[in-house]
């Protein structure tokens, strides 16, 4: 037993030395993990888009239409930049990207309302970004409901129903809208937690593949294994190396997942203990996954980065924070669980953004342990493969 620990210790220290003597790994582990989170937080720190520029075409010019335009202008989501005389004018503004939505109140708006018929408001929305659509349509709908209630009350009054009876009739059921998590619906609060976890995943993965590539390139493939242990258990080597990355990623995770969210006021509802318990299998799984991949497939130090970096985009969408897992085709759902990023991101988002306890993320937690176990075995096999086929 003592010998096992001694071996692990030896591999561990050798690996640490290797990490700190390599400029590339230092860049990936200590510079990339600082730059990416800070850059993304700076980009998305505003969280929302206020005052989307819109144009209004009011051909009706009645009291009701003017009230609508006033209320529209007062919305936080949109700002009436232009009041146009006709649709052609407004359309030209939209083509010039000076407005992103047009509200069109037709000439019969006032007469229809006076006739107690349903009046229509045309909304034309620029779909080049979903954010324009969200602001115009969501903001507009809230206003529409408010306006409907106002007009309904007027009409009921004309029909001889007023007071409490009328307001009860207008709202026979009242909806209390509660956004339980990310209450303001901010883009950053949704996007960045997932991204931070992806940064951890990708930097650790690339760091390990760079080391594997370099070992292979310098024709010292076996330098991943200390000379004394070459004839001994590969499990000890794998475990010793993993220990090194766990130690490295304790301060890095603290910075990325705890300090950065704190600085940028991102949601942080989960308890640090839960998070720590959740991160352990995550880091193990990524480490062993990286080792497996690196030893089998990576022959040059930069090839992992070259072929793997664009994959971050896929990993992000595979994780199911954007397109929900409930709506993913089965094949892609199964495929997504090949990567530790999927359960990692799902679990982290729920722990930090919704305050879930370990019990609520048990599916993901279990998946991470299973991945860690399976990839540990494959990582050992990959070392055996190196020993067999890549003689120095």
């Amino acid at each position, binding site marked *: 037993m003592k010998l096992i620990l001694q071996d692990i210790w030896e591999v561990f220290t050798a690996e640490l030395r290797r990490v700190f003597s390599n*400029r590339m790994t230092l860049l990936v582990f200590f510079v*990339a993990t600082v730059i*990416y989170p800070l*850059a*993304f937080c700076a*980009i*998305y720190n*505003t969280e929302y*888009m206020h005052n989307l520029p819109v144009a209004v075409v009011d051909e009706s010019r009645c009291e009701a239409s003017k009230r609508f335009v006033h209320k529209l202008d007062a919305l936080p989501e949109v700002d009436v930049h232009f009041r146009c005389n006709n649709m052609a004018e407004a359309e030209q503004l*939209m083509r010039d990207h000076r407005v992103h939505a047009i509200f069109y109140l037709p000439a019969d708006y006032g007469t229809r309302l006076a006739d107690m*018929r*349903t009046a*229509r*408001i*045309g909304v034309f929305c620029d*779909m*080049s*970004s*979903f*954010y324009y*659509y969200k602001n115009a349509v969501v903001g507009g709908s809230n206003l*529409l*409901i408010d*306006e*409907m209630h106002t007009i*309904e009350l007027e*009409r009921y009054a004309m029909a001889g129903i007023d007071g409490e*009876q009328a307001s009860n*009739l207008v709202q*026979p*059921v*009242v*909806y*209390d809208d*509660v*956004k*339980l*998590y990310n209450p303001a*619906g901010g*883009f950053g609060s949704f996007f960045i937690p997932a991204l931070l976890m992806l940064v951890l995943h990708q930097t650790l993965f690339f760091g390990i593949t760079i080391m594997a590539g370099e070992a292979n390139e310098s024709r010292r493939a076996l330098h991943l294994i200390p000379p004394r242990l070459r004839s001994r258990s590969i499990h000890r080597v794998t475990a010793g190396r993993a220990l090194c990355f766990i130690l490295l990623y304790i301060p890095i995770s603290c910075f990325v997942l705890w300090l950065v969210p704190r600085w940028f006021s991102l*949601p942080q509802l989960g308890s640090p203990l839960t998070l720590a318990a959740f991160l352990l299998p995550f880091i193990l799984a990524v480490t062993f996954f990286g080792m497996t991949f690196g030893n089998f497939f990576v022959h040059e130090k*930069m*090839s992992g*980065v*070259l072929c793997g*970096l*664009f994959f971050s*985009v*896929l990993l992000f969408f*595979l994780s199911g*924070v954007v397109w*929900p897992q*409930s*709506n993913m*085709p089965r094949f*892609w759902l199964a495929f997504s669980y090949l990567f530790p990023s999927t359960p990692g991101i*799902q679990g982290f988002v729920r722990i930090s953004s*919704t305050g*879930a*306890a370990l019990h609520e993320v048990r599916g993901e937690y279990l998946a991470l342990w299973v991945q860690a176990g399976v990839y540990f075995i494959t990582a050992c096999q990959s070392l055996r493969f190196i020993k067999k086929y890549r003689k120095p």
Partner: protein
Amino acid sequence: MARIARVARREMRRVVKKPRYLILLTLGIILTFTFFATMMREGQPQRLPVAVVDMDGSYLSRRLCHEINATQGVEVVAVYDNHTAARLAMQRGEIFAFYEIPKGTYNDVLQFRSPHFGLYSNPAYLLAGTLSYKQLATMGMLAAGAVQREVLRKKGYNEEQIMGLIMPVEFDTHLVGNPWASYQVYLMTTLVPAVIAFIALLQTLYLMGREWEERTVRSLMKKAGGNAFVALAGKLLPYTVHFTLLLLVAELIMFGPMHFPMAGNWPLMMLACLLLVPAAQCAGVFIAGCIQDPPLATGIGAVYGALCFSLSGFSFPIEAMPNVFNGLSWLYPIRHFYRTYCDVAIFGNGLEHCWPHICALLGFGVLGMVGAAMFARHYRQWERRPA
């Protein structure tokens, strides 16, 4: 010209000798395309899982469940009898929103006491949370309308009068450029070209780095007659053609068989496609020229490139970001591609609208030349250094 062809032939021989990376990158692009094309086939997520906390257990609450299930957007996957169970389900990620119907609701409705429903949603998953909230809120509006209609009928109003009373105003919404509000159209039109441009950028850095590391720069320059522009143009040309072809095929599939909306004229869109890959490669040449240490150049390229998805501004609009990013976004070819796409495909605008962005894409050529000049200088220094 002949020298460029000579260098290009040399590069092709290099690829044939070691085709691994080009094949992997091509497969990566195909995978990305297939992934987005198959995963988001629905356009907008349908039948999102939601729940109902039914403490009332009345005819009304059960009917609401049925009616929610009858819509396309959401599906009631569970009915709970207390709030905590629903909240935990939300934390487990099983549901994205739920209705809470308190005890005595039906009685209150019958007696005109305006009972309160809770509508809880989880925008921590922005798309799913917002969509399921929107669906449930619409259902709530309709349910309220149904109650009003019942009452008004009993008061003796006819159907037309009732409609005028309960629906005095309505929106007639037109979504310009993406009439189905399809998430797929919105993502793929920018993300797929962005991935291709990103790969072209990284590969340029990698290729230039390899020439130094394998010490083959001299043979490259010799083939090019000592001209760095010719050397780099010839070296990158085969990849320019390869990635541009992939991009064109992707665009043809998207706007062809996949029926993505295209309001404007094709040639302009094609022009943007033809310029995107060379622009990304020129950015790569510039970085590699400025930073003569290949791994560091790759690292810088990776940081610069990874921000391209954000700074193209297709998801979160640039104008909502801090001002500095507005300027930075001009440094990204994909930003100009996205703007050209918006002009051409969404609004059907012509060159008179998108010329600044086409010019900007052409402007990356200048960056490339500066990069090549730096490369030449570095090469001369390297030649002169004592062996």
